[in-house]
């Protein structure tokens, strides 16, 4: 035995290999975090998708004056940032799995993005996006600017939940909790879901609004079709 062999054997004499479960735990942890952040990213992307699809691009000039001003005011930047940040964390975890290095970075990122888009589409189809409309107005300033933009009765935009329907009027509670009477005699009404409506028109008095157009608050998305209820 050479001197080096002896030194090596002397050094390991009192050592023991680290237990296998510790390596397995670390490996599963990296995989779990990768999957968890992939799901987080998909959630964020589902909300982004929902908000972009439902953003009122056709009324952009009316609401903000120009398309770009409307884009800046209403694009869900925060959800875009969350989607990307969670995507990066997820990618980093997958890259550091035992065999993550065998896949090219570009391929791994592409697989991650496609999975996130697919899951976001599925989540959105089953109505997850609507959850963002349930948050209160204060939080909406950061997470759902669209809701804030539609509390502008003096400019002719109003949105909220219909609590009573009559032939020529609706009772509506807006996102600030204020009760409105909506005159719909001359309004063009598009069938809407029970979740809510957005109304274009004019404010007549403190709590009365004359509608020109009544639209569903959100567009239907694949499997949400069943929720659609037409006005009597």
């Amino acid at each position: 035995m050479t001197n080096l062999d002896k030194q090596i054997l002397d050094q390991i004499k009192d050592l023991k290999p680290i237990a296998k479960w510790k390596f397995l735990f670390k490996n599963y942890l990296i995989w779990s975090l990768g999957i968890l952040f992939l799901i987080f990213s998909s959630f964020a992307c589902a909300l982004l998708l929902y908000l972009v699809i439902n953003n009122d691009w056709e009324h952009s000039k009316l609401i903000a004056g120009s398309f770009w001003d409307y884009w800046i005011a209403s694009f869900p930047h925060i959800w875009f940032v969350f989607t990307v940040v969670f995507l990066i964390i997820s990618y980093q975890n997958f890259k550091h799995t035992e065999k993550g290095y065998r896949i090219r970075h570009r391929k791994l990122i592409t697989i991650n993005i496609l999975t996130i888009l697919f899951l976001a589409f599925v989540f959105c189809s089953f109505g997850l996006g609507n959850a963002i409309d349930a948050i209160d107005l204060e939080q909406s300033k950061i997470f759902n600017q669209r809701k804030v933009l539609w509390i502008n009765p003096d400019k002719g935009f109003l949105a909220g939940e219909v609590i009573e329907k009559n032939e020529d009027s609706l009772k509506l509670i807006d996102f600030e909790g204020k009760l409105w009477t909506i005159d719909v005699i001359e309004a063009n009404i598009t069938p809407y879901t029970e979740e809510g409506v957005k109304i274009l028109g004019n404010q007549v008095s403190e709590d009365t609004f004359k509608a020109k157009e009544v639209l569903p608050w959100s567009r239907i998305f694949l499997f949400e079709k069943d929720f659609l209820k037409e006005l009597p």
Partner: protein
Amino acid sequence: MIIKEFENTSDEEVVKLVLNDQKYFIILVKRYETKLYRYISRISNFNDQEKEDILQDVFVKVYVNLNSFNSDLKFSSWIYRITRNEVINNFRKFKRRPQIARIDPEDDFMSRIRSGLDLEHEINNKVDLDNIKQILNEINDKYKEVLVLKFLEEKDYREISDILKIPMGTVATYINRGKKELKQKIKKYDKSR
């Protein structure tokens, strides 16, 4: 004695034996100490004492982390990876840069690099071993590292990929780029003479 007895046993089988009884670890030490010492010499310019210290640390790490060895990998790839990491840690510790420090004449490196890199025309008799060593030291570290593993350690693409923890496609890219850079440097060297 024990070395002879397990001469035909695969590394992966020996690993299983070591996990049950430490005494079998000497088989792995004997199988790899020369190869790894030579590899450390090829990728660094540490002195003999430093190289022995690195080698000792490598074997201690191998033993302590033996349970993390995944049999989907070749054991040799795994132990080379640990060695490379240990050398890099020592580069950081001593603030040194990777160097091609030793190419043994008996390595038959010249003929391997001539045929393997398709450099028959570029490498003629005027360019000798020392010149090649100097030229190799001038090329990008990441290409150099792959060329060393491919042409000196004679590892295949999969093994290089597992040692360096990069995709096989990247290994191929680095070899091509390294080859191109090497060709250019040899041409430049030839012209300057």
